[in-house]
């Protein structure tokens, strides 16, 4: 039995008919057409499908689309504003934290959730925040460096 839901994704409102068994991940990728959020494992272990719901990082492969009714969702496509990339995205580019890029959207969003709440995290706090985002390419070092650099930029720019 389809249900009509209203949700805000990256600041834009959508009204959609969804089946209860549709996953939020599939809604975002197929219905809305935002393919930046990735499918990696389907069991909430790899974090490639991470989105922010009301500012909190969740695995969208384990969220039903129907529960997103009335919620504010941020995907990777919503981070850059007016053609200008977010300091976290800048940090990832500058520090060489991107290799295959598949974990990158989820990783950046987990970093955003952290920095929005904790603007000056320790390295240990950063590791905890991204522990649910698996990366096989980078070994995490440059990702951590990128997040530290982004935090500094964000503090400076206020």
């Amino acid at each position: 039995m389809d249900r009509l839901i209203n949700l805000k994704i990256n600041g834009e409102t959508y009204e959609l008919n969804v089946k209860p068994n549709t996953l939020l991940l599939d809604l975002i990728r197929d219905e809305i057409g935002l393919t930046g959020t990735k499918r990696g494992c389907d069991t909430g272990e790899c974090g490639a499908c991470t989105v922010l719901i009301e500012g909190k990082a969740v695995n969208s492969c384990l969220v039903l689309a129907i529960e997103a009714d009335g919620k504010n969702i941020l995907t990777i496509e919503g981070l850059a504003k007016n053609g200008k990339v977010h300091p976290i995205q800048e940090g990832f580019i500058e520090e060489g934290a991107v290799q295959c890029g598949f974990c990158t959207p989820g990783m950046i969003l987990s970093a955003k959730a952290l920095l929005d709440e904790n603007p000056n995290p320790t390295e240990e706090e950063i590791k905890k925040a991204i522990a649910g985002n698996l990366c096989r390419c980078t070994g995490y070092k440059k990702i951590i460096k990128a997040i530290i650099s982004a935090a500094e930029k964000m503090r400076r720019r206020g």
Partner: protein
Amino acid sequence: MSNYFAIGKPIPRIDAIEKVTGRAIYGDDLRFPNLLYGKVLRSKYAHAKILDINIDKAKKLLGVRAIVVGKEMSSVLGGEAIMDYPFLAIDKVRYVGEAVAAVAAINEEIAEEALDLIEVTYEELPAIFDPLKAMEEGAPLIHEGINSYRHIPVIKPIEHSNICHHVQFVNGDVGKGFNESDYVFDDTFTTQVVQHGAIEPHVAIAQYDPTDKITVWVNNDGPHRLRNDLSKALGIPSTKVRIINPPYIGGGFGGKGGLKEETICIALAQKTNCRPVKILLNREEVFTSTITRHSSVVRMKTGVKKDGTIVAREVKVIYDTGAYAEKGPTVTNQASVAAAGPYKIPNVKVDGYCVYTNKTIAGAYRGYGIPQVAWAHESQMDIIADKLGMDPIEIRLKNVLDEGDICPTGRQIMTSIGLKECIRKIQNDSNWKKVHKKAIGRGIACAFKNTKTPSGSSAVVKINSDGSIEILTSSVEEGQGSKIVLAQILSEELNVPLCSITVSSPDTDVTPYDASSTSSRTTFHMGNAVKNAAKDVKKQVLEIASNLFKARIGDLRIENGKIYKIQDPGRKLSISEVIQSKYRSGLDIIGRGSYYPEVPSEKGGMWASPSVFWMYGAHGVEVEVDTETGRVKILKVVAAHDVGKTINPVTCEGQIEGGVVHGIGTTLFEEMIIGEKGEIVNTSFLDYKMPTALDISEIIPIIIEVTHKDGPYGAKGIGEMTLVPTAPAIANAIYDAIGVRIKDLPITPEKILNNLKKT
């Protein structure tokens, strides 16, 4: 000659912006009209005859458009080394997870439901899971057709057996060598089955057109190789097969090469009246039905003099390749060549065996068989050093290859060896000299790795009349940085700004031949091809410019995309202006370049020649062992790698750091557990654990540059080498810390505690 403006510079990757903004397109992001979704029915048995497959009920399900079973393609067998691989199981299944039937339907739910309605009748056969048992006389044959399979000349299957390849290298006389030795060491080491763990799963879309040409969009690391494999398997000209890569692949590490799910897509697409069929493997299928890393048994017998000089080494290497050969035979070859380690050894004998078992297929995996032999030779090196009372670094420095030495198998004279430099970097690290604290230890390991030789690469460089430049290449960007490296090489060679360059992704109808983006070969081979193409296009541009400037070509320079005469540097014209001066209504300048290494003899063809370059590296690891729990904490890793010449140091460091963590994972955490019936027990990331950010330590990547005369700007390669020395370095550090020697990977807390109890 190191005043480069692009080479060796830490330039941000050109693909990074797409990736950080979510605009990078991967296989599952491609969209197709009229798409059908394919799902695969897989065997629950490790070894069984297929007596019957009843698809009557499945056919009737509303929304099903095609069903296919193996018998319909019974004449099709694929495989690069040995052609033993059916697109779907034909008369029997050989591993749990093998494709038996497939359905294409209008959506995934219906395709899945249809699978439920297919009835397969099996007759179980005795299954073998132990490669040593599979090698025994009288063991049930997994491939009855082993005598008749086509294969490349360098591969030697043993008739009527489960040994699909045996290779032997002999240099000198090991028997004599052992007799002359003061000590002989004989140790056996084993490694486990592990997953590649690329975060992006496998995906393929296949579509026939009305002329019977098949196009496949697939995240495959060797599009031209795939095209050749498919055209051979299907018996059709290669122009009837088109492979298109999505712009990016989400990691490969060797797991996305050869024939995978695209074969099933093609089988289905033959029946869908030119509608495209897509198969996206779920993570479980990636575990059970793609490929894994070969598990191994390596017996290493080494004779040394009391001063630590290695006199003789005999190695027996057994690789368990699972149900089909895949890359197993060439893995066995490559690893056997390197099995004795990067050492001067006058007497060497290596026997490499590639063995079938009824398990998930093992194939190409970062390191291509060399992590397994390095695990053996570097662990044993420390066993030897310990017995002789020698420092582990000193014994290695004493024996490692030097410029001009003959490699252990006697096949080639070795040049461009930065191994001593790598080892000394670890020796000079501050932690190495510190006094031991309880349960803290350090270990070192070094290794070398070859590249498949001969193999060829071609590239086209196209300058458009607006001055924008395209590299047409079949190199695959799967995270290793091929796009930025090739762009930097072009930028340097042609002296143009990087921002004017775009690098294509592969389309075999358009981008010229490349053997594959594997074997750490892209920088060297495609880099040379791009360099040659750049030279070609530069010559053509300067010819036009010489008319325009009324100057000899020798007096012209290009700098930052602008051309001028050295006698009049004030007057500069852009490349675009130069091109348009001749071709006012539009034309481009096309340059082509190729690289195929000079090889001593073409007898034997693919994989037959000594490696055109070798990579060298050494890892120093410091660990702390919790003697109550047996858990090992990695405190620090110093990873020194000789890359010849780094094109992009940040990308290089990234590869080293990533490889080290990958290596730590496959040493301490990862193991694919095989159940009693040959099934993989842990088929998800819930219970197959790769390192997270919380599991990493301090890592110091060190780049050593001992140039190679034939590499572009002296460059060699890096990608696979970075996880090779990690496992033995960790094992050696653990021995240093607590006197426990583990010879079987993975190193688990239980193994440590059990061994501690014994000491």
